[in-house]
């Protein structure tokens, strides 16, 4: 399988007034197409910072993030936003749907930004919402959906742009057990169905139990990088 993401010497140093904090310390790692990876580690280990740099949200102090052959941090701000839109899907801990748009509109929105034709957008929105199990809530606003349902919409939105990979930062942190299990099952299915690469930052053992690769980070460095066979 091809490398979707190549990371070389990724470093992030936060300069506070008196001390320098190395949140990510020279990480080298690759992610292959279709991987289902959990990035784990204690709070403050640097996993969210690592994910933000990987997703083109936070500029590294040093190092390269190469996605599909493009060194993303060499792109202009404008091109980087377009790059994220076309190549990276995001699932956030707090769902972060646009509250004034319905579930369907939230999913369709990113395709509108991509300039896809209306008919295609409508068909794909319907397909995705049905795939995540809430096809009947297409016209509901986020405020009318449960946390689990909102996170399902967020997954559908992340998949809508047909990204190279999806970054999910603590996606189950605000969900109850039943919703967590359902969401993990769903993402696992999506991973298999669309062969989309998933990378999670998580503390959740249930996520780790589903992951086929677990990267453990501590003090900004990779401590372990393990692969598992899963059903």
């Amino acid at each position, binding site marked *: 399988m091809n490398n979707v993401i190549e990371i070389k010497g990724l470093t992030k140093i936060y300069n506070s007034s008196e001390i320098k904090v190395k949140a990510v310390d020279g990480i080298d790692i690759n992610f292959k197409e279709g991987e289902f990876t959990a990035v784990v580690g204690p709070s403050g280990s640097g996993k969210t910072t690592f994910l*933000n740099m990987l*997703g083109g*949200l*936070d500029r590294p102090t040093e190092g390269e993030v190469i996605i599909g052959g493009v060194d993303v941090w060499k792109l202009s*701000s*404008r091109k980087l*936003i*377009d790059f*994220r*839109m*076309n190549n990276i899907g*995001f699932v*956030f801990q*707090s769902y*972060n749907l*646009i*509250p*004034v*748009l319905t579930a369907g509109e939230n999913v369709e*929105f*990113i395709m*509108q*930004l*991509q300039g896809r034709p209306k008919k295609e957008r409508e068909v794909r929105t319907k397909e995705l919402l049905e795939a995540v199990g809430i096809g009947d809530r297409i016209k509901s606003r986020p405020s009318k959906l449960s946390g689990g349902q909102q996170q399902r919409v967020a997954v559908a*939105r992340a998949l809508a*742009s047909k990204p190279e990979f999806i970054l999910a930062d603590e996606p189950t942190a605000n969900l109850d057990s039943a919703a967590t299990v359902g969401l993990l099952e769903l993402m696992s299915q999506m991973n298999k169905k669309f062969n989309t690469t998933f990378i999670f930052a998580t503390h959740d053992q249930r996520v780790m139990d589903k992951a086929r690769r677990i990267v453990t980070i501590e003090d900004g460095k990779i401590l372990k990088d393990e692969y598992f066979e899963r059903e």
Partner: protein
Amino acid sequence: MFKYIKIAWRNLWRNTRRTLITSASVFFGVFFAIFMTSLQKGSFENMIGNMARFYSGYIQIQESEFKESPGVNHSFEMSAKLREAIDNNPNITSSTNRVETFALASNKEKSFPAFILGINPEQEDEKSGLSKHIVGGEYFKSGSKDLLVGKILAENLNLKVGDSLILLGQGFHGVTAVGIYKVAGLLDFPLPDLSKQIVYMDLLNCQEFASLQNRITSNVIIVDKTDVINNVIASLQPLRGDDIKIYSWQDLMPELLNLIEGKEASSAMIKSLLFMIIGFGILATIMMLMHERKRELGVMIAIGFQKSKLLLMMLTESAFIGIIGVLSSLVVSYPLMYYLYKNPIIVIGEMAETYKSMGFEPKISFSISPQIFYNPAITVLIIFMLISLYQIYYIAKLKVVDSLKG
């Protein structure tokens, strides 16, 4: 484009109460500014109209030195071309010739200085309603040899209607002007100074008295709207000779112009203060809604919304607040101002007497000039443009990672 408008419109109603309160502040600000300006402009128009109709006209044609040195020696003969141009100008509703001079008015052993005004009785009555000021005797007609005398002057001279008055003055080129005339009527004006010295004569009679033949000292022009004054003057300028000057009411009544400009300046300060308060209110709302949505804005940028488009959406949203406020204000204020324009408030009691004593009709007038309505709208637009600078700065400086932290 439509999707930004749709999101902006829906965002507007996420906090209905806040949107309505902010729009209401714009509504009341614009409404108050319109009401205040309409009232002030209406009063000024009424004041100018009174003065123009009664005395100066909106435009006046004089011999070039008459303004500095009034007297029959600075009289002139109106050329046929200028006369024709005045008669054919569609904006001129009336024009009348006058002779102004001074004389000593005597009755028996009493003498007082008098301001003699030779007029066309019918035209002058139509223009200023002069006959309404008759308090004794009757108004005169063209060709009459009689006089109308100010009430206080008549009292000072012990004159009654039907008595004779001797006028002694200086005519054209120093010729002695003298005559004895019958008093046809007495006039009372709100301005005591006028009643104390005015004597009206028929124009031909006055020209004869001052040996002027066809000469006049001024031609007084009334136009249909004050905003055409400059155009009318410009159309007449090429036709006047070098010895003639054409003045607007502003040239002839600089004190009134200064008074108006002074009041307009103080009103502009009040309005500026009002809009400043409204502006800070709007700024507070915009700052609050930007801050509240920091995380949401960050998410939108993270998933691929360009900052420029995000800004466009936010500007559309704040523009909606302004548009709602301004449009609702115009919808309410225009019919109200139009009604008050058509039906001025009639002042009664002591206030009415004060108005009359100042020479004005006892009514509170309103104006419906277009700028009364579009000036506050433009001001609100400028306020929103200034506030948009904050939005531009906020979005330009927005860091996705920081905003995702909330």
